[in-house]
């Protein structure tokens, strides 16, 4: 069955920031259960890619993976956001997430502001404050060996800031390959009056297991023949 694969990356942001690592604080979940992806909903996701080829060896079906990062405890990504500029913050507006660009004006986090009700306790930070984590790159063995071809695509959907990562898989080289996702995890800094998201770059490793089987004719079990019309 040809379907696009989806991998959900659920990040426990507060724990990841506290421990400065994604190990034990990330849960990976894909939709290939029926093709036996293993170790699902653990940090060690092995995604099974079942490729197919024609008799001449050429690739018969394209396997596409889509990644979707989520922050556990983040405000739901479906909440409407308005793009804003950090410099124009009104003191009573608490940024839900912020736009960050480095000196070369490269995109780091894209976000917006929302007026947010805050408790009177100066020390407490509201629970649903974090932005979503964002994938900035996918590298590793699978990419180096030209098995996986990842790229960042623009999306009209503001989930993950209008970008998402997707990859095509060359299924002609069976085997198990690892890849690394580089994820920006937002850390809240500041006081209740002025909260900012500071992105922290972390890495998460996962694997793909590629196999390829030959396509056969459903009527004959081999090559093309006459239709079994009776």
């Amino acid at each position, binding site marked *: 069955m040809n379907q696009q694969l989806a991998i959900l990356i659920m990040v426990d942001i507060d724990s990841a920031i506290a421990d400065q690592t994604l190990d034990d604080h990330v849960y990976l979940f894909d939709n290939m259960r029926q093709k036996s992806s293993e170790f699902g909903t653990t940090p060690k996701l092995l995604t099974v890619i079942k490729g197919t080829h024609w008799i001449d060896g050429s690739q018969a079906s394209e396997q596409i993976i889509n990644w979707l990062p989520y922050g556990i405890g983040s405000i739901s990504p479906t909440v409407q956001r308005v793009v804003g500029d950090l410099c124009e913050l009104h003191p009573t507006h608490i940024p839900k997430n912020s736009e960050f660009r480095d000196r070369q004006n490269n995109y780091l986090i894209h976000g917006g502001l929302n007026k947010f009700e805050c408790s009177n306790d100066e020390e407490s930070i509201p629970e649903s404050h974090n932005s979503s984590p964002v994938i900035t790159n996918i590298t590793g063995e699978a990419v180096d060996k030209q098995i996986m071809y990842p790229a960042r695509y623009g999306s009209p959907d503001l989930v993950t800031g209008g970008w998402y990562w997707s990859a095509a898989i060359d299924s002609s080289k069976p085997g198990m390959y690892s890849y690394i996702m580089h994820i920006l995890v937002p850390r809240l800094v500041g006081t209740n009056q002025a909260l900012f998201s500071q992105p922290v770059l972390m890495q998460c490793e996962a694997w793909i297991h590629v196999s390829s*089987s030959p396509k056969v004719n459903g009527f004959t079990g081999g090559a093309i023949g006459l239709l079994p019309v009776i």
Partner: protein
Amino acid sequence: MRSVVTIVIAVDVIGALSDRTLGNGNFIMMDNSVWPSLAQGTANLCTLVQHGQLVHWRVVAVDLQTPVAIRNIRFYSVGAEVLPEKDNITEYSEMPIDDHEKAHLNFWSGVVPGWMIQGMDYRYGVTVQMAKGVNSLMRIDSPSLRCV
């Protein structure tokens, strides 16, 4: 005469699994025959073909992230009673449930044989597999081929 006729089946997998039927517009078919096939865009497609043409079936899921594959295409004898649509094929003896893994390895093409009588509708049933499990197989028996 075009040598290949392609029949594309579009399935709304979530709709089919929720409604437990391939009816209600969850399963539609279209072909590119040079002759005016009947009922294009419905599940009752009657594709007009000619002896010697290659007919190729493809299935596409409306939602890219839902799985669908053609598990079987089976022709019925002319005049045979058309079986009612089956949405739970655990008892379908020719189709072991465990073969769901192999459904995506099949491609469905065949040549129109010379013994097809022109003008007669040869009905066939399409069984689609959507993911796996006892509710994953559904069959619809309304499409047909007709030789011109």
